[in-house]
């Protein structure tokens, strides 16, 4: 079924373009709300790339956690913080723009050359598969400590966020 392979390849290009266009939108847009929209579009494209990497579970988690939760939280930050019609990006002078582009392109070229030069050898043998069942077994037995630690980190983050956001309000009321 060679037709389906071509369709998959076209879809891959589509997700890749989605990722880059979302990133460009997030970086270059004038309004902060458009930047958050660009972030959501780009993360959706990355979710598609996860699908191509053989993990539909992580694609769903990407849509659920990043597009669903993190972007909504950032939108709340935008709406509670600055005025929505405020300009998001700096008016770069020519020299600063040149320096920013130079720094970013230097980093990219260095990474690109490093990727091209390195030979990545696949592992001699693979144990297990990409299924959710195998991931869950690893998570609950072999990587149990990390699993517990991430829940502690999330709990600390929740409590810290509540304390930080509450502190200002009490000070204002008194």
């Amino acid at each position, binding site marked *: 079924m060679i037709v389906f392979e071509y369709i998959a390849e076209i879809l891959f290009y589509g997700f890749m373009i989605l990722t880059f266009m979302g990133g460009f939108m997030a970086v270059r847009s004038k309004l902060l709300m458009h930047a958050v929209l660009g972030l959501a579009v*780009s993360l959706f494209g990355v979710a598609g790339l996860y699908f191509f990497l053989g993990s539909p*579970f992580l694609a769903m988690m990407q849509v659920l956690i990043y597009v669903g939760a993190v972007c909504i939280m*950032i939108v709340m930050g935008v709406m509670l*913080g*600055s005025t929505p019609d405020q300009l998001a990006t*700096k008016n770069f002078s020519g020299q600063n723009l040149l320096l920013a582009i130079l720094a970013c392109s230097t980093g990219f070229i260095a*990474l690109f050359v490093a990727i091209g030069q390195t030979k990545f050898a696949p592992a001699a043998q693979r144990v297990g598969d990409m299924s959710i069942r195998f991931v869950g077994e690893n998570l609950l037995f072999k990587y149990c400590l*990390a699993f517990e630690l991430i829940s502690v980190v*999330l709990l600390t983050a929740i409590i810290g966020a509540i304390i930080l956001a509450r502190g200002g309000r009490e000070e204002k009321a008194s």
Partner: protein
Amino acid sequence: MMISANLNTYLVIAAILLVIGLYGMLQHRSLIGILISSEFILNGAALNFMAFNRFVAPNPAVGQIYTLFIMGIAAAEAAIAVSVIIAVYRKYRSEDPDLVQDMKL
């Protein structure tokens, strides 16, 4: 030749995501914009982990678990950062990073 079955494609995409985040950090002038850009950098790292997990790792669950942890860390980081930004905005009525660089209220 299918580029979707090639490790280097994903590594280059992740590098471009990193560069987008770096440029956004330099370009944006509000704290929220810097937070958005940092999400791009985290996503580039996660995509790298997933690509190596798919093509070279001996245990194909480790990369997925690591990416899940990156998502959890990113969610925690976004929650903390948004509440810090709201607290800063209450004090200063502004989100300019230059105003809060001495970290003193």
